């Protein structure tokens, strides 16, 4: 039976589908040179969808709808809002990327993968989960390899596809084992069936490890991170930004729901495994980031490291832990999108992507320099930017759970982070262009970039200073897990 309450549960998704259809209808009628404006349509449409969902689609007490396929709760809703925000910003950033943003398909693919992400955040059934993960991934494979004339882009798309297909198959195998052992695919029924006593520990750990392969690929934790630098470097920059933020956050949404709810019976065991993985992830990500000369590769390794930090909140396995993960991801989405947006705006004018090309940026465009400062200091974890509060919350959750060693590893890693993030800022603020004529090489911002970047920069500062509302929402989301 399809009732109105079910409709409310999937209201954002319905709106996204409507928007996607609108894009499809409009595209053939607009002349080629005007198709860039589909970006405005997409971003504006998503904004409207967010407002409408916030007004009419807010969840109450958690309920299972659509035959237990979907869980309608704050956790999913908060993540949905984050994904839609990220997609709207990405649409704006795509607009002035000639090879991608001037074609309607790009926006349609973006919306399709957004649809998948939204469903990932609310899936409460393994079948639904798998479907939504694939719905997310397949459009992203295409988007990564969108620039057909560009070898690197093609390589990125193909690499992403191969890794993605392999890992998701392994994950599917894990899902089928879960079903085999317990006879159910519903996450909330698994809570009572997938637990010590019913299953030998080795079997359970093995099954969870298989599933972790697929999720680890999504959130790029070591050792499933190999694709990230190559794909980020080759893919169109806005797509890379979307991959490193929304796609990663979607992975975390699933990870949190799966491990906190379905596998809570084995919490003692999987927290240990994840703790080791998180420590390795942070360390490898940061150490490799030091040596990068390409800014997109640097951001790729830094995003690997950030997955490790966020993981500390998962490992804490507490309400504060879950809230801090959600908060961390909100701060991280704003920050990293800002970083990728600046890279995009910069390379649109200059065509360059190496760290050293950023010499003199603060003189060429003081505004862009300042925003770069905000983004990189937020990644470092300095106040008054979002990254600081997020990191403190995650560490606080870790210490509450008694994971002192993990927090110390995290802290050592953020010191490494200080080094290489500040190194980039050194180019931006200190070094000058070879002939010192920055005045003649300004970096103008087109309107979509200006809007997107200013919104993101304000967001980064707001999350870092007025953190109460964000944390309250994260906390409300986390509350649904317990």
């Amino acid at each position, binding site marked *: 039976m399809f009732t109105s309450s079910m409709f409310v549960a999937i209201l954002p998704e319905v709106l996204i589908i409507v928007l996607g259809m609108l894009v499809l209808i409009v595209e053939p009628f607009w002349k080629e040179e005007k198709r860039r404006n589909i970006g405005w349509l997409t971003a504006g449409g998503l904004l409207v969808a967010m407002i409408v969902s916030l007004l009419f689609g807010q969840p109450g007490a958690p309920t299972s709808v659509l035959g237990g396929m979907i869980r309608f709760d704050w956790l999913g809703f908060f993540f949905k809002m984050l994904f839609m925000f990220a997609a709207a910003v990405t649409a704006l950033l795509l607009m002035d990327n000639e090879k991608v943003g001037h074609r309607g398909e790009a926006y349609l693919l973006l919306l399709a993968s957004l649809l998948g992400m939204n469903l990932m955040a609310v899936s409460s059934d393994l079948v639904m989960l798998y479907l939504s993960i694939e719905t997310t991934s397949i459009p992203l494979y295409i988007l990564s390899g969108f620039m057909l004339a560009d070898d690197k882009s093609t390589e990125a798309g193909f690499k992403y596809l191969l890794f993605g297909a392999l890992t998701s198959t392994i994950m599917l195998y894990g899902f089928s084992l879960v079903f085999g052992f317990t006879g159910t695919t519903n996450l909330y029924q698994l809570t009572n069936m997938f637990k010590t006593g019913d299953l030998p520990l080795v079997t359970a750990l093995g099954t969870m490890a298989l599933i972790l392969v697929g999720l680890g690929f999504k959130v790029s934790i070591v050792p499933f991170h190999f694709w990230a630098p190559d794909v980020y470097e080759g893919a169109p920059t806005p797509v890379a930004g979307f991959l490193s933020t929304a796609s990663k956050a979607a992975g975390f949404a699933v990870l949190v729901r799966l491990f906190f709810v379905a596998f809570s019976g084995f919490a003692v065991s999987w927290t240990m495994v994840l703790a080791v993985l998180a420590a390795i992830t942070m360390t490898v990500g940061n150490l490799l980031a030091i040596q990068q000369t390409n800014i997109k590769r640097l951001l790729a390794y830094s995003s690997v490291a950030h997955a490790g930090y966020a993981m500390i909140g998962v490992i804490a396995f507490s309400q504060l832990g879950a809230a801090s993960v959600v908060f961390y991801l909100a701060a991280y989405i704003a920050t990293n999108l800002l970083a990728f947006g600046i890279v995009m705006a910069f390379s649109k004018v200059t065509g360059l992507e190496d760290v050293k090309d950023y010499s003199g940026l603060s003189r060429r465009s003081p505004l862009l320099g300042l925003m770069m400062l905000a983004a990189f200091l937020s990644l470092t974890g300095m106040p008054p930017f979002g990254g600081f509060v997020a990191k403190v919350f995650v560490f606080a959750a870790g210490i509450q759970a008694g994971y002192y060693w993990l927090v110390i590893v995290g802290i050592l890693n953020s010191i490494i982070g200080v080094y290489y993030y*500040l190194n980039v800022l050194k180019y931006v603020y200190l070094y000058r262009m070879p002939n010192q004529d920055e005045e003649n090489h300004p970096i103008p911002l087109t309107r979509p970039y200006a809007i997107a970047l200013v919104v993101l920069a304000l967001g980064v500062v707001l999350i870092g200073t007025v953190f109460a509302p964000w944390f309250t929402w994260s906390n409300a989301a986390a509350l649904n897990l317990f």
Partner: protein
Amino acid sequence: MNFPVLSVITFTPMVAALIILMLPAQRKNEARAVALAAATFALILSAWVYFSYDKVSAGYQFIEQYSWLPALGISLHFGVDGISTPLVLLTGVVMFTGVLISWGDFDESKHLSAGIQDRPREFFAFLFLLAGGVFGVFVSLDLFMLFFFYEIAVFPMYLLIAIWGWIQTREYAAMKLTLYLFIGSVVSLVGVLAMYWLQYKNTGVLSFDMLLMEKAGFSHAFQNIWFLPVFLGFAVLGGIWPFHNWSPDGHVAAPTAVSMFHAGVLMKLGAFAALRVGIMLLPDGAKYWSWLIMIFAGVAVVYGAYIAFVQTDMKYMIGFSSVSHMGLVMLGMSTLNRNGIMGASIQMFSHGVMTALFFAVTGMIYDRSHTRQIPELGGMSKVMPFATIGFIIGGLVSMGMPLFSGFVAEFPIFMGVWQSQWFVAVIASISIVITAAYVMLAIRKVFFGPLPEKLEGHMTDVTILDKVAITTLCSFMIVIGMHPSFMVPMIQTGVENVLRLLGGS
């Protein structure tokens, strides 16, 4: 409802930073004017706080509390006591004089480029962000917010030094400084979070409020484990030996106003946070480890003075003398008795003003002569008599001469150390002799004697703004020296509070 003076003081520099950033880049003088206006405003307010602090009722005053994140017990809780009120005033003074010094003077024909001529807009914005952070730490009674402001006070240093610093060492020094300070602060962070959760376990209250944490009843074992990380983590910024290495390098590489801020206020920030969080919240741990802090501080006092003695670069000399003087602050704190802590608190103010003055004058000389090498300088009293007088007064303070603030500060420290461990006082007093030696040698060499030939012709006197700055700084040192009751009774009230937490020793 009272006027929320502390939050206005804290946020004035930050708002000013935003306004300055919005000005067009070529409007350099407007940026400076906004900066000066904001600094004057902050100075007036901090002076007002200083003079209207009620010494009779003591305790924390001008209290403001706004709930910020109730779910985790974070609130904007501001208030000052007898120890932090002088430091707020100090920050106001250094900020005001720092802006005056940075205004500078530009004359192509005389190769004169004093103050900040390159991108003053960004310079003042970052400097004021830092100043806001410093105010925030001094007035915060909430541990989370203290930490928040502490970090804000740290990272602009990197940019300020790396961009406007001395071209030879700025990148190295800026990175070194940032890494040292960041390591220190995150080490303390772990301790702070551990305290937070233990308080929750003991009392069931989820709060970062330091006034509540004082009553949290941390066990001896807990305090003994966590005192060292927390205290030393903050004390890194206070330049404690053996973690002082970043400090002289940072001083040398920084532009004048930043050196003033760095030595004048930032190092106090470390010492203050170490006192407030380390000693006041973990008093048993402080008693357990005070011998170690005393050794570290004692070494810093003597060793810093020795190293300062052999320097030929004026800024390195002052940098190491700061290590030595901050060592005295730590030494005073490590005694955990009334005299020691009181001396340490006065020394924080006295040293802040004195070092700011030293760096200001050194900057004026460097901007005109383009060298800081003591052997290459001479005869400055002929061209800049006013600055010379200022430097000499600073020198007398540094030596601990009676009638100047240095004496008022150092005498109680040595008394306190004598009460605690007399032989440490004997060893540490060597530093007074060495300090007198290097200060007087530097004064003779730099300011008197003949003016070197290659400097003749392009040496000019300091500007009127510089003179205002020098006068302001000197007047504090003389007033406290001549009339100690200007500051001592206030600090005593703060010290009583510390002693109460230490169990009335």
